[in-house]
């Protein structure tokens, strides 16, 4: 699945090539437009947006909207800025990603190298669980988190994200380990290594790429989640996406568009950063999640 640059053998005339390039550039502008608008308007005074042109560069550059979005903007009832919610998201994402990735790796290992009767059915059930509309579990999960005393807490959100992320992490590792030579496992068995030692000494050291793919996928999904965050968090445990939505939708006072844009970029920054640093793995994760079970 390496989308390496190596185009088709089809060839085109000169005019066609110019047309192709123009089309591709127009689409690039379409995709960049919202990002451009967010960036430009997040460093303008509010007056330049309401009274001026959204597409224009700022006449006066200011980082005030960023500071406001980060530490003083009104979120719900508190003028805390997005900072506490950013921290909530980090506190939620790190353990959720780590736990679901580790469990997915072990599941994938069992499902490919220690196969047993009915394992494909179990895997099929896990796989389907990735695609269910989560509305179907909202009511009982809300009840259960309440019963467990985890309602409205970060650990509650971690738990939910681990549970509903397992299907995907298992899928990734299963597909990766399926292509992993079984003879290596057999050789290690003959050498006297047991279940866990084969995993830690042979498979894990060779799982670098798929760990990166899985971690990125889980990180992006959990960071960007809104449904679970808005259903199961309390005022103090809201993740970034929910806080951003509260900021933008708040109906009181003047709409501070520049602060909204700065906040949106703040919410997008971690995943955007991951994408820029390791886009290759990000794309691989997307593809692995879509094709081939």
């Amino acid at each position: 699945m390496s989308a390496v640059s190596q185009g088709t053998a089809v060839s085109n005339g000169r005019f066609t090539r110019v047309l192709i390039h123009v089309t591709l550039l127009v689409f690039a502008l379409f995709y960049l437009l919202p990002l451009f608008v967010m960036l430009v308007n997040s460093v303008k005074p509010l007056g330049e947006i309401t009274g001026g042109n959204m597409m224009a560069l700022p006449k006066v550059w200011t980082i005030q909207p960023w500071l406001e979005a980060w530490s003083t903007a009104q979120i719900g009832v508190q003028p805390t800025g997005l900072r506490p919610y950013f921290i909530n998201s980090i506190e939620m994402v790190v353990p959720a990603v780590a736990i679901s990735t580790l469990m997915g790796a072990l599941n994938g290992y069992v499902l490919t190298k220690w196969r047993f009767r009915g394992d494909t059915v179990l895997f099929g059930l896990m796989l389907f669980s990735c695609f269910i509309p989560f509305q179907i579990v909202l009511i009982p999960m809300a009840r259960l988190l309440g019963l467990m005393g985890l309602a409205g807490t970060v650990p509650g959100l971690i738990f939910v994200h681990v549970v509903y992320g397992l299907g995907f992490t298992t899928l990734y590792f299963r597909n990766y380990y399926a292509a992993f030579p079984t003879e290596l496992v057999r050789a290690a068995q003959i050498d006297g290594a047991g279940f866990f030692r084969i995993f830690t000494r042979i498979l894990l050291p060779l799982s670098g790429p798929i760990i990166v793919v899985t971690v990125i996928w889980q990180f992006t999904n959990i960071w960007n989640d809104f449904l679970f965050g808005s259903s199961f968090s309390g005022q103090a445990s809201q993740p970034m996406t929910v806080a951003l939505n509260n900021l933008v939708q708040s109906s009181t006072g003047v709409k501070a568009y520049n602060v909204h844009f700065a906040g949106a970029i703040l919410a997008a920054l971690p995943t955007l950063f991951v994408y820029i640093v390791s886009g290759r793995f990000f794309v691989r994760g997307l593809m692995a999640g879509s094709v081939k079970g």
Partner: protein
Amino acid sequence: MARETALDLRTRLQEWIPKLVLAPSVAVMLVFVYGFILFTAFLSFTDSKILPSYGLVGWHNYWRLFQLPTWSLAIENLAIFAALYIVICSVIGLTLAILLDQKIRGEGMLRPIYLYPMALSFIVTGTAWKWLLDPGIGLEHTLHLWGWTSFHFAWIKESDFAIYTVVIAAVWQTSGFVMAMFLAGLRGIDNEILKAAQMDGASNWNLYRRIIIPQLRPAFLSAFVILSHLAVKSYDLVVALTGGGPGRATELPATFMYSYTFTRNEMGVGAASAVIMLMTIAAIMVPYLYAELKEPK
């Protein structure tokens, strides 16, 4: 032939460890996915309001659901949204993939630009497009300032057109991903087949229409499955972009379920709507997953 008893302890332990390791995940899945599905399905037959309640009311909630104009609107919106979203994403995705596949020098630069929206939260996307499409400060306002004073574009404020703004934002977010899927499909086609077809005198148009696009069937199928399930699950984007409005103009099943369950205290009806959403997705995903899992061996 007492071979079962001859298993030494270590071997027997080794046989159990894999199952023990898998057990927590299986238990979690059975309880929190399938158990919860059953529970919600059960609630959809009860008189639950604010809290779950166990008085059975038969098909009453479903009957009520389909009497509600809001639900009909949500279904109608979903049909419009899903159809446009899937078709436009596929067309843009395929076009971009084919164009990018023509040995474009800047491919390494363009691909990440097309794909980056996929890394963003729908809430961020919604926020950006909400203000971009806002007639007061966004596109309309800008074009007025640029001199095109008769330009009118206020879909996001108009009940009949607001759903199309959801399509625009959703297409913006996912079409790059569809492009990547098609591009991977294109790169998987044997170039020798293309060379042979060119020797046979096929024009580029025929090459794509008769040879290449038919070979992209698996990519079309994957794109359809992924996009349709994303469409049914669409929730965050609507919340951030239009909040379901203006009025209830952009209500979708996902937003309907949430508001009926948690703010309008009609849990039974909410559960029924969730069951219908699940059934819709299952109708698409189950055959697909079954085929994917069955093929090898």
